[in-house]
């Protein structure tokens, strides 16, 4: 095969101009921009309540399970499918965890591992029908939604089960302890924030240097610097605010690690690339030697595990498992992925988009609750935002 190194290959250098670049990459930045605008809006109308450390912590805790499931849902939707059962899986796994720890006396670690496995098995059971029997995922997971909603009720006997051991509660309500022993200020939080900023900047500089070396189209330096500085400021400011309260929640760390992992998997690995190809053109992917059935199956297994994790986090947060837990979560998760720019026909979508989409929904929920808007109109507004976001996306793509 070819033995030349990359830099021997001549490619015309492209001079990127600000306007041209912003135009072509509007979709990438547009999402983040709209999240910031929405946050700014609620910050103003709630007289600064939105970004108070306490509320910010709540925002993270309230949305962590949605964000985590959005990561799995993104893969499912990119592969050209949908999973309506995740809300019911959250409820079922939460209920199972409660029964195991409270009634059957298992320890939290065993329970957690068992519950994640059960989540994966539920995903496998559904993925099997979708991948190998070609039953539409909409139908299979609609059935799963009913089945597991019912099984949750049966498992819990219609009652709430709790409370949980303290160790398990920490999954949701715990914070990273301050190793520096600060009084009223969590230095560890600030340190972790600064460290992650350093890592992010190191990687973005490295990839830019690589891109420049190989004459890939890159963002103008001004924009690149602006983007990085802005991101650094946001992360540090966020960690500073959190530090003044109780530090970084455990679940935030879990979430951040998972986001980084899934961003890496989708962008840089062969399995990620194949999922996009599968969703973009299943026939072409198949004729290129990709095991499309197995890949579809695996995306559902993955979704099941993440829904199981979300179920554990949600149960730990409430410190009790209720038959109604997880009700309607699937809608928030799916909405987050679509607001984040994924295509309903598959093949298109980004992890960062899905995460931003989840926070757009989360911030609106939180902000409207602070404003005292009733649950009735909250839903109306969220529905309209979903429609507007996706219509705008479709319109942009047509141009």
């Amino acid at each position, binding site marked *: 095969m*070819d033995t030349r190194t990359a830099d021997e290959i001549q490619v015309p250098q492209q001079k990127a101009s600000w306007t041209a670049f912003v135009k072509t990459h509007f979709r990438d930045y547009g999402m983040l921009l709209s999240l910031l605008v929405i946050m700014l809006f609620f910050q103003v109308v709630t007289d600064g309540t939105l970004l108070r450390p306490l509320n910010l912590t709540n925002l993270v805790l309230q949305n962590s399970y949605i964000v985590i499931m959005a990561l799995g849902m993104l893969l499912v939707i990119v592969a050209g499918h949908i999973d309506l059962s995740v809300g019911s899986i959250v409820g079922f796994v939460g209920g199972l965890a409660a029964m195991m720890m409270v009634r059957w006396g298992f320890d939290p670690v065993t329970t957690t591992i068992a519950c994640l496995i059960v989540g994966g098995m539920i995903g496998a059971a559904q993925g099997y029908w979708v991948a190998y029997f070609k039953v539409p995922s909409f139908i299979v997971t609609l059935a799963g939604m009913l089945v597991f909603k019912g099984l949750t009720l049966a498992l819990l006997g219609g009652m709430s089960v709790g409370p949980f051991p303290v160790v398990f509660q920490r999954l949701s309500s715990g914070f990273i302890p301050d190793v520096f022993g600060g009084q009223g200020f969590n230095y560890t939080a600030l340190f972790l924030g600064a460290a992650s900023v350093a890592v992010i900047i190191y990687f973005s500089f490295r990839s830019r240097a690589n891109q420049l070396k190989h004459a890939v189209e890159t963002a103008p330096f001004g924009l690149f610097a602006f983007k990085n500085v802005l991101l650094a400021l946001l992360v540090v400011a966020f960690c500073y605010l959190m530090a003044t309260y109780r530090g970084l929640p455990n679940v935030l760390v879990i979430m951040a690690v998972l986001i980084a992992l899934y961003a890496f998997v989708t962008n840089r*690995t*062969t399995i990620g*690339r194949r999922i996009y*190809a599968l969703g973009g053109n299943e026939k072409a992917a198949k004729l290129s030697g990709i095991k499309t059935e197995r890949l579809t199956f695996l995306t559902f297994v993955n979704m099941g595990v993440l829904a199981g994790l979300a179920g554990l986090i949600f149960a730990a947060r409430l410190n009790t498992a209720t038959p109604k837990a997880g009700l309607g979560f699937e809608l928030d998760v799916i909405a987050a992925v679509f607001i984040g720019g994924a295509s309903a026909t598959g093949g298109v979508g980004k992890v960062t988009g899905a995460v931003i989409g989840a926070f757009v929904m989360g911030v609106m929920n939180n902000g409207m609750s602070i404003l005292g808007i009733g649950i009735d109109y909250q839903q109306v507004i969220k529905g309209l935002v979903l429609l507007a976001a996706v219509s705008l996306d479709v319109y942009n793509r047509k141009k």
Partner: protein
Amino acid sequence: MNAILEMRGITKTFPGVKALDNVNITVKAGEIHALVGENGAGKSTLMKVLSGVYPHGSYSGEIRYDGEERRFSGIADSEKLGIIIIHQELALVPLLSIAENIFLGNEQAKYGVIDWSVAFARTKELLRLVGLKESPDELITNLGVGKQQLVEIAKALSKKVKLLILDEPTASLNEKDSDALLNLLLRFKEQGISSILISHKLNEISKVADFITVLRDGGTVETLDCRAEAVSEDRIIRGMVGRTMEDRYPKREPKIGETIFQVENWSAYHPLHNHVQVVKNVNLNIRRGEIVGIAGLMGAGRTEFAMSLFGRSYGQNISGRVTLHGKEIDVGTVEKAVSNGIAYATEDRKTYGLVLAEDIRKNVTLANLEGVSKRFVIDEIQELAVANDYRAKMRIRSPSVFQETVNLSGGNQQKVVLSKWLFSDPEILILDEPTRGIDVGAKYEIYTIINRLADAGKGVLMISSEMPELLGMCDRIYVMNEGSLIAELDIAEASQEKIMHAIVKSGRR
């Protein structure tokens, strides 16, 4: 008798290709006019111009129908005047009844409420005219292809047809159904309905046609009168293929070695109808550095053969042996076929070849991601180098390898598909219609790439419906018809006449 249809000086160009060049055809009232020509000669394009699929203004020339100049802007315009076209691919809704299909879009209704008794009565009458005894509420899916064809004709009759156009109506019919259909055309002729019949089956044409117009390379060659005395099939074939071979194929000195690839007794059945054998006991071989062609008409089973061979991507109950370099290899899945050195570049690059929403880079590496990754992690720089390399080698015209393939021209898309398969480093490359829908310049480039592959010691199996292309490129040609290889011709003895004769002869059995 006066002419019902006159098309004069019709010229239609697509970007990069002149599909029709000053075509003239005259159809008199109450005659059966056959339109013949090779695949790609422009028959279907001409009929699309006539029916308004290509609206007035998108072509130049004049259409006179029923004594007036007509400027159709869509099919609805031409249908209103009684020009009905029945395509090769039937346009019936399988799960609706015969009556529902016949009046689809033309329902027997008042204020949107369908009067089923009228619809059924009229359907019965129409079915009687075409010789069908089925009940009007029978579902289309329960009918065989021959009867479906007749339902299409009944549907045309319901629209008060004056000029019926049939595009390869008997291609998928058995002899009995074909005869029934041809007799129907003769009956219509007596009633003053004119027909234009597009067909490859020259014996059928000789049987019913009054005139034969021959198209070649987008131009009218001649119109033959068959009323006075029969025109021989040889005479028609000469008109269809009688072109001088120009210098359209790059020169190559074949260096042919030992046999490297062998397929023995390969059979496959239709994926839905398990009693229909689509590929019948195919035996073929390819030698090192050889370009082998498979000629045949559309629907001969060539693509089905290639796809069943490539990881069982088509059909069921597939059987046969494949050997490469003397060893039997497993081609049971695409992955195994690829890793064993087989590649198949599809005839339908948009459906089976490319992920259109993704860029050139990602498409090029798709079949061999392992070649640019370490332990599941893609080395983006290496991937980029590979993509840039192929972009340069194959002369893919695009601003960069980050161009989405949906925005490329047909020729450049084809080069991306070829790049993908070259990067998987195959021993045997199967090319299915590698130059379909590509302009002449890009064709030459693709031919050059194919020659280079053969010179590098690979074996190339080339499926093409364009006979000149096979004759210009191949060292040996197999002819396929109805799922079987019916002839094997060395290039020295091969000619279009011989290929055509072989097909016509086997089709008559």
